[in-house]
């Protein structure tokens, strides 16, 4: 460490017999990568040593495979604990990758020389200063940091004691007068190779003659080195492949002479191991035939003289776990700093471009930006590109840089190509600066830890993989079943559809029951392997996948809201507490920007369902409840204006949304966190407000006069208040003229069903809606809205029935045919019994005169006082033919009531037979409804009727 001169000699001289070639690099630096290739070509070593886990030696041959496409990552994980893992991501512009490929092409063996992953993983766990995490925090650091990025095991646990760690590049950059180490590195190293080839633009730019203010902690030697590095190299100079490494090594040596390990304490151990391995290799292949590719930070330490014994002593007694290493595919996005397992490079796409562009990197880069923008139908001409390149050059010279870097090119592109707008630039940043590159790993790569973890989880919940389809009923109140459900849900999130949710047998109350159909198909193993890029355990992977899906949806356009809601609905049962906040945030954001009330209303039920599920599964329902309440609020505000101008079609859609949202809001008010006591309190509160409900025109229910029983204990979502506002909105809708009849009728009905609208008030509203002045079609729509979804109302409230009947009899003949389809649709929804009872009631003659109840006739409800033999006889033949001779004793009106499910004329005939001649137009409407519906009643009825027809057929055939 002290002998800087020696370091320089060894690193620079290269082929000299006295030492191996030490290539200090910056991980993921394209300039370094280029330089490494040049140096290796010149030196032609017989062995290449790379900073990385020695366990990886076994999988090195895979790197030569043509199926291996970077970005990939070397993944080391503890065998028994798949959650404990570390990644060494490699892009095609990573110097390590270049060295690997060089070795593969030249048939030279490769050895990884870093501290074995077995130790690193074990250390990463128990060590309080959180070494492993530190590596990630350092951002796969500029340099000197180990190549490993975030280890999987340390999720959510930032280094407890954040020591002051030296970022060597930052120190050098500061010494050179740069405030941004990234830029310094770009200027000094990355642009070095390229500026020599490309004609430097903007020759009028001032030379970057920066003063080097003596940084207190930086030795003057390092400062001068750094400044020296900063000097632009003359383009005419013959390139010396070793020169950049020598200069960098020297600067690092100065730094380390002052800072020692710079706070990276484990580095000493790692370097000791590297030295031992290096010595081994030198002994085997000869000093002059060994090349080392490692972080520049380590170069001085590797060059330092140290005894074997001393190094061994450092390595003694290290904890150990059983570790395995494999390759996993990686993506540029994950290389980028922003994402979780990032390697600390903000711009992998740019680096990739710098590495792969044969010449003129700025011009080519700008052309690529232009191509991307043209794909988006933006007008970008070659003249634009020319101007952008010129501006980038001028900017670079203004900023005193040797060549336009990423910042300059992006600024120029924004000003020239995008007319100053940031929106297309976001696209550029996403597609080009980061890029959509996905790596590939050959089939033969060892199993990923996710598979092991799945195996472990599967055993823990006692499920077996079987290719046979089988049903599984889960009771979520039981521990094992809940765990099973979680596992299956997580796998579904990962695209591993081992279990498909089946419709619960105990349908309806599905809050604590769940049914699955399990089937393990061979290709699911492949899916698991693919899902390996998301994480090393099922939990981690599902969390990462859910987050990424949410973030994707956050920027997507189109039906994103529905997608996020669906995602939320899968996330909650999968119990991913770390993903839920992200999903919920995205959901809230999308909801805020959603202008279509319909979409909002559709999103609401799913969300409310998740709130309910939360209770059973023990997840915290507060966040979803709050988001749901916000969503409900938005629907509440947005619904009235949205209803204002609607045609018949739109009104029908809106009615569906209204129903759905109403149900959800009611449910939410009951389920919101204060629901326990609140359930009682709101109903009391609201019925108290009822007398005032006639003033439904007031759209402002907020200063609700209703005293909240426990105002202090109600948390933010405030279910009762929400419900109050919701009903206020319904009331105002029901009473507002100009709204479609369907909506108004529906609102009145919803309020009535909730007990929030007095009977007299409902009658008044109906009277208003059905007054003679209203166009019949509008009134019919109102009736549809009011009456659909359960006809018991009409059965029990004769006053309403009378109103409808009177209105219908008053409809002029020419309008009747227009109204009829609407009424048919309405009545077709009713259950058979209800419909029959209604028909019966109507038949009994002019309504309103015999107001003393249906039972007064003395006969069974729905039937006349006696059997009209003549009329029944007319239908008897048909019924007999339908039911067959065996059923002849069953020929009764009851049997006839079953029959209409059979298609065609007989049904109508039977029906009319059963009911007799109807006494009023309403009766006929009811009947037509029956006939039109075709699918009446429940499934059993259909089944019965079908079997009856079958029997009849059999009988007929037998008879023949």
């Amino acid at each position, binding site marked *: 460490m002290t002998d800087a001169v020696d370091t320089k000699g060894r690193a620079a001289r290269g082929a000299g017999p006295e030492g191996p070639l030490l290539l200090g690099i910056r991980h993921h630096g394209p300039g370094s990568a280029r330089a490494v290739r040049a140096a290796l070509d010149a030196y032609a070593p017989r062995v290449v040593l790379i900073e990385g886990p020695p366990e990886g030696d076994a999988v090195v041959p895979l790197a030569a495979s043509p199926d291996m496409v970077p970005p990939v990552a070397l993944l080391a994980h503890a065998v028994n604990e798949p959650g404990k893992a570390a990644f060494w991501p490699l892009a095609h512009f990573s110097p390590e990758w270049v060295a690997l490929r060089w070795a593969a092409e030249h048939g030279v063996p490769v050895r990884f020389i870093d501290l074995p992953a077995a130790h690193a993983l074990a250390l990463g766990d128990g060590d309080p200063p959180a070494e492993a995490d530190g590596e990630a925090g350092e951002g796969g650091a500029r340099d000197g940091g180990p190549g490993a990025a975030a280890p999987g095991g340390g999720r959510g646990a930032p280094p407890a004691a954040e020591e002051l760690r030296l970022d060597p590049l930052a120190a050098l950059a500061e010494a050179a007068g740069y405030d941004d180490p990234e830029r310094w590195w770009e200027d000094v190293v990355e642009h070095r190779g390229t500026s020599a080839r490309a004609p430097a633009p903007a020759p009028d730019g001032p030379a970057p003659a920066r003063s080097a203010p003596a940084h207190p902690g930086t030795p003057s030697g390092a400062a001068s080195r750094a400044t020296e590095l900063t000097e632009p190299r003359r383009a005419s100079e013959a390139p010396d492949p070793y020169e950049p490494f020598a200069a960098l090594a020297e600067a690092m040596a100065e730094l380390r002479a002052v800072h020692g390990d710079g706070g990276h304490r484990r580095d000493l151990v790692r370097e000791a191991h590297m030295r031992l391995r290096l010595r081994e290799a030198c002994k085997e292949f000869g000093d002059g035939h060994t090349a080392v590719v490692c972080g520049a930070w380590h170069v001085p330490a590797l060059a330092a003289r140290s005894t074997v014994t001393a190094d061994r002593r450092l390595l003694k007694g290290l904890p150990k776990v059983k570790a395995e290493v494999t390759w996993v595919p990686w993506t540029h996005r994950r290389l980028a700093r922003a994402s979780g397992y990032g390697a600390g490079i903000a711009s992998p796409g740019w680096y990739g471009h710098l590495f792969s562009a044969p010449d003129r990197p700025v011009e080519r880069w700008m052309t690529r930006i232009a191509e991307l923008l043209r794909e988006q139908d933006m007008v970008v001409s070659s003249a634009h590109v020319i*101007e952008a390149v*010129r501006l980038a050059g001028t900017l670079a010279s203004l900023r005193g840089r040797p060549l336009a870097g990423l910042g300059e090119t992006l600024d120029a592109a924004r000003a020239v190509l995008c007319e100053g707008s940031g929106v297309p630039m976001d696209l550029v940043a996403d597609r080009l600066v980061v890029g959509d590159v996905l790596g590939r790993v050959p089939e033969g790569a060892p199993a990923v830890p996710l598979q092991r973890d799945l195996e472990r989880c599967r055993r823990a919940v006692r499920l077996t993989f079987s290719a046979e389809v089988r049903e599984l009923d889960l009771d979520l109140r039981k521990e094992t079943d809940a765990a099973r459900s979680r596992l299956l849900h997580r796998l579904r999130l990962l695209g591993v559809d081992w279990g498909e949710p089946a419709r619960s047998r105990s349908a309806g109350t599905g809050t604590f029951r769940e049914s699955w159909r399990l089937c393990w198909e061979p290709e699911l193993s492949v899916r698991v392997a693919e899902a390996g890029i998301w994480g090393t355990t099922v939990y981690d992977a599902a969390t990462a996948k859910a987050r990424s899906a949410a973030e994707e949806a956050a920027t997507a356009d189109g039906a994103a809201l529905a997608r996020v809601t669906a995602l939320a609905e899968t996330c909650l049962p999968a119990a991913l507490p770390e993903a839920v906040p992200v999903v919920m945030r995205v959901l809230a954001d999308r909801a805020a920007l959603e202008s279509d009330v319909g979409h909002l209303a559709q999103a609401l039920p799913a969300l409310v369902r998740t709130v309910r599920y939360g209770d059973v599964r023990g997840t915290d329902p507060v966040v979803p409840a709050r988001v749901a309440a916000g969503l409900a609020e938005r629907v509440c505000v947005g619904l009235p204006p949205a209803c204002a101008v609607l045609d018949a079609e739109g009104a029908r859609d809106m009615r569906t949304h209204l129903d759905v949202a109403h149900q959800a809001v009611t449910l939410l008010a009951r389920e919101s966190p204060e629901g326990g006591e609140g359930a009682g309190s709101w109903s009391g509160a609201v019925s108290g407000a009822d007398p005032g409900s006639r003033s439904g025109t007031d759209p402002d229910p907020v*200063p609700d006069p209703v005293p909240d029983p426990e105002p202090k204990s109600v948390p933010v979502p405030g279910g009762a208040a929400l419900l109050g506002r919701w009903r206020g909105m319904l009331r105002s809708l029901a009473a507002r003229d100009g709204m479609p009849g369907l909506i108004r009728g529906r609102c009145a009905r919803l309020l009535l069903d909730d007990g929030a609208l007095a009977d007299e008030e409902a009658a008044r509203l109906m009277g208003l809606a059905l007054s003679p002045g209203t166009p019949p079609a509008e009134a019919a729509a109102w009736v549809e809205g009011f009456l659909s979804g359960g006809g018991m109302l009409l059965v029990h409230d004769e006053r309403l029935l009378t109103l409808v009947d009177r209105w219908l009899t008053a409809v002029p003949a020419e309008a009747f045919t227009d109204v009829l389809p609407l009424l048919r649709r309405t009545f077709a929804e009713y259950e058979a019994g209800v419909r029959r009872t209604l028909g019966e009631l109507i038949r009994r003659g002019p309504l309103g005169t015999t107001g003393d109840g249906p039972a007064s006739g003395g006969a069974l409800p729905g039937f006349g006082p006696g059997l009209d033999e003549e009329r029944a006889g007319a239908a008897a033949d048909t019924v007999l033919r339908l039911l067959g001779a065996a059923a002849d004793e069953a020929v009764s009106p009851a049997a006839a009531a079953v029959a209409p499910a059979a298609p065609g004329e007989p049904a109508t005939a039977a029906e009319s037979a059963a009911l007799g001649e109807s006494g009023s137009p309403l009766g006929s409407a009811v009947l037509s409804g029956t006939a039109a519906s075709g699918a009446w009643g429940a499934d059993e009825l259909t089944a019965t009727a079908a079997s009856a027809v079958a029997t009849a057929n059999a009988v007929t055939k037998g008879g023949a």
Partner: protein
Amino acid sequence: MTQSAERTALRETAETTAHAETTAHAETPANAETTETSGSTSHAEATAAGALRPHAEDAFAEELAALAAVDDRPRPERWRLSPWAVATYLLGGELPDGRVVTPKYIGPRRIVEVAVSTLATDRALLLLGVPGTAKTWVSEHLAAAVSGDSTLLVQGTAGTAEEAVRYGWNYAQLLAQGPSRAALVPSPVMRAMAEGMTARVEELTRIPADVQDTLITILSEKTLPVPELGEEVQAVRGFNLIATANDRDRGVNELSSALRRRFNTVVLPLPATTEDEVDIVARRVDQLGRSLELPPAPEGFDEIRRVVTVFRELRDGVTDDGRTKVKSPSGTLSTAEAISVVTGGLALAAHFGDGVLRAGDVAAGLLGAVVRDPASDRVVWQEYLETVVREREGWKDFYRACREVSA
């Protein structure tokens, strides 16, 4: 020196006289240049004393001189300073000799650097932004630093005619002597071309589209033909043009894409933080209030903060804490509008209230500023009230006041 004095006097007079002055310069370009250099310091003092608002190059003459003294970097032809020095002049900083340059523009460094670099290439610069983002200010200072003269200005209005961009005629001379160079009245743009200076066009989008397009030849061919004389004026090195335009206002004439292509565009952002904006609004309201002779509102600061917060949140589409997204209304919601809302509220409080600015005083103005399109904006506003304002700690009175005026 006499000419310099004459110039100084002329500057404070109306535009018509300015034409005469410019004619004089066009006739004797060499003479004009010497006046320019020798006169800049002396007339600075003369102007600063009398003018209500001195030009940038006069008000900051000292800083410009100091920068020029230490500036050893290469300067593009006819530039007073190097690009680096121009950027430093706008962004502020300390010079090697210890003198401090005040920042003229507080905002992202990138914007100024791109703007200066654009001028150094021969592309024209278009400064875009909503009202009150210092477009004019930046363009004035850029021209002052680059060319030492920020007065070559065409003010864009709906009535700006082609003569204002190209050239007009002195009709007396035209009739007396026929078309000649002497009868020609050059526009500021023409002068800038001939002398290699920076011309400015303010409010480019207000200018009718056909007049805008006369700039196309000037910007692409760098020449201005005078068919009446069979001549042309060619731009010399150093000529460039800075235009400012408003991209959110209604009733603007969109730039044709042919013209747009000839500009590099820099969008000036709104104030970055709430604190900045509250500060700007409070200071401006204070100034306006004094000139309107309103009593100062001692308690009104909270209200200003709330108004600014509402404006920012609606404008940005996200709440200040970054937790909740909200829809943005169709209006611009610029800082300038926030200022007028607060000033209006202040007047209300002073004349009809107890002199203390309260929520009720600003609510109506706020509603008017936000709800520009009655159909869509009202929903946006109500949604914002219900989902954001209602639940905010300590905003109850504000919420009530807003509901009252919105009902």
